[in-house]
């Protein structure tokens, strides 16, 4: 019996009136988990019922704990007829299952109904008591942490980055089951919500199992998607990067960050035995840490081997989907071998990360992508989702071979997506081919970490630009020059990548958002013919998108693209392509050449004049952009290299292919061959359009910048104001005389107007930058185009921004210093946490064996040592915190427990509870951002992943303000529900927030509409940097102690 789930229903408020006669409601609550249901008493005649129920206890397997959501249904009691449902709350209890995450879920949750939206709120307290699981044959993977963030989360350190994990689960879509014909739409939607909740729980558990098998303890860059395949079923798939993470014993360790859930504390009473490590000489000797630091690999060797055997007993558990077993095996072997060629042996050396620890990324080759058009068929056996697995395996294989062709052994910034229309489905995958530093990928190279050999080899800021492939045997015709920075290595003239700009990259000027937009008409067709038509169109689309990107990049006088995301959407009668990326000028790459325009009929005088006019306009635009983005590279390069940079050639960094269902792979060479690259030939109206569209892109108004990467290159003095938003637009095309040009223009206008609107709306935030601008295009119906944008506007300090070069230098300096500090604390960390040679085993096994301490992150240990030596100080501090917490705390039950413990962890917990700045006494502010950080604040704790799926429908569309009113309200409700869940976990922000799906369907004639939204993110606790300083000042003595080396890091 591995777990006991306890739920208490406290109260409700703002309930809707269910009884017209009395204008009141007789509400009661059903609490359901798995197959067990409890009910509260009926609270008569009140819109603000106080149930104050007993604790409902569910005794369940941890497998169920991971899969099942907690379902809370609020109903109106009716003596004579059936009880009316008011609404539901689904609570994902997963965050309660990790160590270090949330310990209690407690707060007000909006009561949600698929027809009426939010109808009041309910106050719920949820706790989980996990027992030690002795069963080695378990199917659960409690304890594996999940992060949506595509970089190593802020308060962690990556010990090993294991690699790619993927899984998919399929099921029949309840909407298409026979029963749907007789049940109400509401019942059907609820069934769908429940099923998807269940499926994502199951998926997460399965991924967790794979991670445990690889001996990781976390998944970073976790991306879960739904494919609504209609008749043929529902696919939930996820990819991520398995890692072994360690909690940093940096400043956060002394602050709220080092938080351990009570169940761990129960098992290891820190006050009595602060360091139950068998190898330790004494708990409070500062020297101990130092000794460790120089003999990092010894201390745990015995433990390591024993746990190894433990693990090998663990049976392979990759049931269901095919590829589980394939990866587990090689990985284990690989870890033991500790070979340098680690990556080559992996089936898929892919990483979903987009930002990396320093030194991880050695070279970047370029973007690799693959697409394939498939015909959907019914999934006959949901337990054997082989076809879908095989499809993806095929695409991944292709990506891998492309990367190889670029001389790279790995793919970073990897992502997968689908676009479905009727029974045709385009599967896409893309990433950036790269050469990685093997030291992070395997164990046994600890010493390597300590010597900064990489930094010696590669001059800072240009290493990643250097070509990974053989100069003489290039995969495509490229034009190489010597690196402008180090003058030793060759670099390409243009670089396209899907990752974020590396921190150490030297950038000149600022970056900007660059988009390529494209539409292509397609004949309506059925099945096979349709698939063929689409796959015939795809190469042309890719080519044109690429050309557009290249031209726009040149026009901006920039030479590299980061965060490139090309989305191809399929509709009934057209295909849409939208590529977004952030252009920058990399100092290491050569200056881009201009754009030449050539006419086809040179004899015509007026035509000639027209051409030269255009040429002038283009040159002017380039000059203007240079000024706008402050691109003024030093002019020295040419003299030093000796020869002027020859007219560069356009060529592709993209290697791609399309494959049909028939599996034939066509390689497409996107280079223009011998043709001079930046010459645009105006030989027909099409080309004219292209040039025009180039020039019609309006730069954002002054004071605004935009990018689709995490941070804006060239701006680094963010102030704390952030505003995350979602904007949706749908346009109806006039069905008459649709041509490609008209379509392109419409689409272009749609996107441009949308951006203009955003700039206008956010004008009060100037100077500010729109970061992580994420466009999604869908074609819900024949003549409808839907564009959804999610982004965050962040203000920055203009005064400092002006001195970009200076700040940049400072940044480098700062980085260097943090590096030093990291190095400094590094050995100390090693001593206390599990070594890389001893990859993190499931924490629980270690907890039960009292002799082992490796399951507890370093941070906590550091604090406990600290505690014993400064007991007095700390206890007085606890008093202080207690007082503070008493007033602010939320989950009273939980906090009392921690008080009793009175351990440093308890304090941590307290600090956390009180950390959220409750500006508003009633509803705490929860920030949301698609970025992995919060400007001006430090994330002290990750509380768990938020992954929510909602369906909303209406049969009174006009009454709810039409489609706009309906969707506006729904999105606001989704935000509210995300915020409520985060607040209930004790958090005050969501980072790496993403709206993965927003499927909107309407039927105005019937006055109906329906919308599905899927969002995810990481719930976190952050502390403002200003507050942080205050807190650290409170206990300077502890900070200065050698036992907490990371205490003084003030980044």
């Amino acid at each position: 019996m591995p777990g006991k789930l306890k739920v208490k229903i406290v109260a409700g408020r703002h309930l809707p009136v269910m009884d017209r006669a009395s204008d009141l409601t007789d509400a009661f609550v059903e609490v359901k988990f798995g197959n067990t249901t409890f009910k509260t008493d009926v609270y008569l005649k009140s819109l603000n019922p106080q149930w104050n129920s007993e604790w409902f206890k569910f005794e369940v397997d941890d497998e169920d704990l991971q899969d099942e959501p907690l379902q809370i249904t609020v109903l109106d009691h009716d003596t004579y007829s059936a009880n009316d449902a008011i609404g539901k709350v689904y609570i994902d209890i997963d965050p309660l299952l990790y160590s270090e995450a949330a310990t209690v879920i407690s707060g007000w949750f909006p009561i949600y109904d698929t027809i009426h939206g939010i109808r009041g709120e309910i106050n719920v307290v949820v706790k989980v008591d996990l027992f030690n699981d002795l069963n080695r044959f378990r199917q659960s993977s409690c304890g594996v942490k999940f992060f949506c963030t595509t970089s190593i989360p802020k308060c962690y350190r990556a010990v090993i980055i294991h690699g790619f994990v993927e899984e998919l689960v399929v099921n029949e879509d309840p909407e298409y089951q026979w029963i749907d014909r007789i049940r109400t739409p509401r019942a059907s939607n609820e069934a769908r919500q429940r099923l998807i909740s269940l499926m994502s729980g199951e998926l997460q558990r399965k991924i967790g199992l794979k991670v445990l098998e690889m001996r990781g303890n976390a998944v970073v860059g976790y991306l879960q998607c739904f494919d609504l395949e209609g008749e043929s079923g529902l696919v939930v798939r996820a990819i991520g990067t398995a890692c072994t993470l360690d909690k940093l014993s940096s400043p956060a360790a002394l602050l709220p960050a080092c938080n351990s859930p009570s169940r761990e504390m129960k098992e290891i009473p820190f006050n009595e035995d602060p360091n139950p490590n068998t190898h330790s000489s004494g708990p409070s000797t500062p020297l101990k840490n130092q000794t460790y630091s120089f003999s990092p690999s010894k201390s745990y060797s015995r433990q390591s081997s024993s746990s190894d055997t433990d693990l090998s007993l663990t049976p392979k558990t990759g049931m269901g989907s095919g590829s589980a077993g394939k990866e587990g095996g090689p990985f284990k072997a690989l870890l033991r071998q500790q070979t340098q060629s680690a990556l080559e042996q992996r089936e898929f050396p892919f990483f979903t990360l987009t930002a990396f620890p320093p030194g991880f990324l050695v070279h970047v080759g370029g973007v690799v992508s693959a697409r394939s058009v498939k015909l959907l068929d019914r999934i006959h056996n949901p337990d054997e989702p082989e076809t879908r697995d095989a499809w993806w395996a095929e695409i991944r294989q292709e990506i891998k071979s492309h990367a190889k062709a670029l001389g790279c052994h790995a793919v970073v910034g990897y992502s997968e997506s689908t676009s479905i229309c009727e029974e045709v489905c385009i599967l896409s995958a893309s990433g950036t081919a790269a050469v990685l530093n093997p030291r992070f990928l395997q164990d046994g190279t600890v010493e390597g970490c300590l010597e900064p050999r990489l930094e010696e080899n590669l001059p800072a800021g240009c290493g990643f630009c250097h070509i990974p492939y053989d100069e003489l045997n290039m995969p495509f015709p490229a034009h190489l020059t010597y690196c402008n920075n180090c003058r030793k290595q060759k670099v390409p003239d243009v670089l396209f990548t899907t990752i974020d700009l590396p921190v150490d990259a030297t950038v000149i000027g600022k970056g900007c958002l660059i988009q390529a937009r494209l539409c292509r008409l397609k004949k309506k067709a059925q099945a096979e013919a349709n698939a063929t038509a689409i796959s015939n169109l795809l190469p042309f689309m890719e080519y044109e998108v690429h050309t557009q990107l290249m031209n726009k990049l040149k026009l901006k006088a920039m030479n590299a693209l980061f965060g490139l995301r090309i989305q191809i959407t399929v509709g009934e009668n057209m295909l849409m392509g939208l590529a977004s990326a952030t252009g920058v000028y990399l100092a290491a790459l050569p200056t881009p050449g201009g754009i030449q325009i050539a006419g086809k009929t040179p004899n015509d005088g007026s035509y000639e004049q027209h051409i030269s006019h255009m040429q002038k306009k283009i040159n002017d635009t380039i000059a203007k952009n240079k000024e706008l983005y402050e691109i003024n590279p030093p002019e020295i390069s040419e003299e030093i290299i000796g020869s002027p940079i020859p007219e560069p050639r356009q060529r592709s960094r993209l290697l791609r292919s399309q494959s049909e269902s028939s599996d034939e792979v066509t390689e497409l060479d996107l280079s223009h061959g011998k043709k001079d690259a930046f010459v645009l030939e105006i030989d027909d109206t099409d080309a004219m359009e292209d040039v025009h569209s180039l020039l019609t892109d309006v730069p954002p108004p002054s004071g605004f910048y935009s990018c689709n990467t995490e941070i804006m290159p060239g701006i680094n003095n963010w102030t704390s104001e952030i505003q995350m938003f979602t904007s949706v637009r749908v346009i109806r095309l006039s069905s008459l005389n649709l041509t490609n040009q008209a379509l392109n223009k419409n689409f272009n206008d749609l996107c441009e107007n949308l951006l203009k609107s955003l700039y206008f709306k956010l004008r009060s935030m100037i100077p500010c930058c729109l970061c992580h601008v994420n466009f999604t295009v869908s074609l819900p119906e024949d003549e409808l185009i839907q564009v959804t944008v999610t982004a965050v506007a962040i203000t920055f300090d203009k005064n400092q921004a002006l001195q970009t070069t200076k700040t940049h230098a400072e940044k480098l300096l700062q980085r260097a210093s943090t590096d030093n500090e990291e190095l400094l604390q590094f050995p100390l960390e090693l001593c206390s946490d599990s070594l890389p040679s001893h990859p993190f085993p499931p924490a629980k096994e270690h907890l039960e064996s009292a002799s082992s301490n490796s399951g507890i992150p370093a941070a906590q240990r550091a604090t406990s040592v600290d505690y014993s030596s400064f007991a007095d100080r700390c206890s007085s501090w606890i008093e202080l915190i207690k007082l503070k917490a008493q007033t602010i705390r939320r989950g009273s039950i939980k906090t009392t427990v921690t008080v009793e413990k009175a351990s440093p962890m308890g304090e941590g917990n307290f600090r956390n509870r009180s950390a959220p700045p409750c500006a508003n006494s009633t509803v705490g502010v929860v920030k949301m951002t698609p970025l992995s950080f919060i400007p001006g604040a430090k994330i002290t704790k990750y509380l768990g992943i938020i992954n929510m799926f909602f369906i909303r429908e209406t049969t009174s569309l006009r009454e709810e303000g039409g489609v706009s009113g309906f969707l506006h309200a729904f999105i606001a409700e989704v935000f509210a529900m995300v915020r409520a869940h985060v607040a209930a976990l004790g958090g005050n922000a969501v980072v790496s927030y993403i709206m993965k799906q927003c499927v909107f369907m309407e039927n105005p004639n019937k006055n109906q509409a329906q919308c599905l939204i899927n969002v995810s993110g990481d719930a976190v606790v952050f502390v403002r940097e200003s507050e942080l300083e205050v807190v650290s000042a409170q206990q300077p003595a502890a900070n200065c102690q050698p036992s907490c080396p990371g205490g003084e890091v003030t980044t």
Partner: protein
Amino acid sequence: MTSELDIFVGNTTLIDEDVYRLWLDGYSVSDAVVLRVCSGILEQTGATAAVLQSDTMDHYRTFHMLERLLHAPPKMLHQLIFQIPPSRQALLIESYYAFDEAFVREVLGKKLFKGTKKDLDDISTKTGITLKSCRRHLDNFKRVFKVVEEMRGSLVDNIQQHFLLSDRLARDYAAIVFFANNRFETGKKKLHYLSFGDFAFCAELMIQNWTLRAIDSQVDDMDMDLDKEFLQDLKELKVLVADKDLLDLHKSLVCTALRGKLGVFSEMEANFKNLSRGLVNVAAKLTHNKDVRDLFVDLVEKFVEPCRSDHWPLNEY
């Protein structure tokens, strides 16, 4: 190409105060766009009219959704759907309940639930306030009235507690509710020169001194109704006019009290008998509901007008 759907939702709800003002003033989206264009916003920001249109629509939609919450301001504080900083919330509520004095003057003392609605059109044309805005005004009055009508305790406190208004605005609402409850006649031509502020001042004094709670603070009854006993007592004041001795005594007491404080003291002294009689007669009649309603008319007729005819400066009332 037509825009079917166009929305913008921020994690923190964006509120443009200028647009909010326009919305409160009852302008339609298209009128609001025209007004915004006139304000020169396009030139300042370089936006197009289409952008402005979409922005205005968006704000109007948000306000429309917020309106439900504005009807019960405490809900606004606890709701989870819109994340709005507290200072902004206060501003939203305050502006929503703020009113045009011209409008109040028209409906002051009228029964809020009957008849007035069809008069709204007239008021709208008379005051130049849009019909929509008039309706919001009236609905606000009605809502406040309905909530505090049966409530015990201080009227101002009740209003403040249930509508989270500023002290000043709550006092004004208390006056409106008080007037509406007692149905004081304020629409007569003679009273036209009096502003809402004047009446509000009277209402405050009357609430403080003439209501049940004013007599006995232990009786935790409402502020709305005039104390019947007190009115009965007023009847006895007739002796002040009937009995010569008492009249003189009264006169000397009042004169002592007012000496030096009144610029027109001598005139007052001279006319004391007339004035006193007027006041006492008005006071004595207050036991009848109809006379209560006509309180202000009578006061003006019997007290203010004689004063005015003697050329007292107006501010002495």
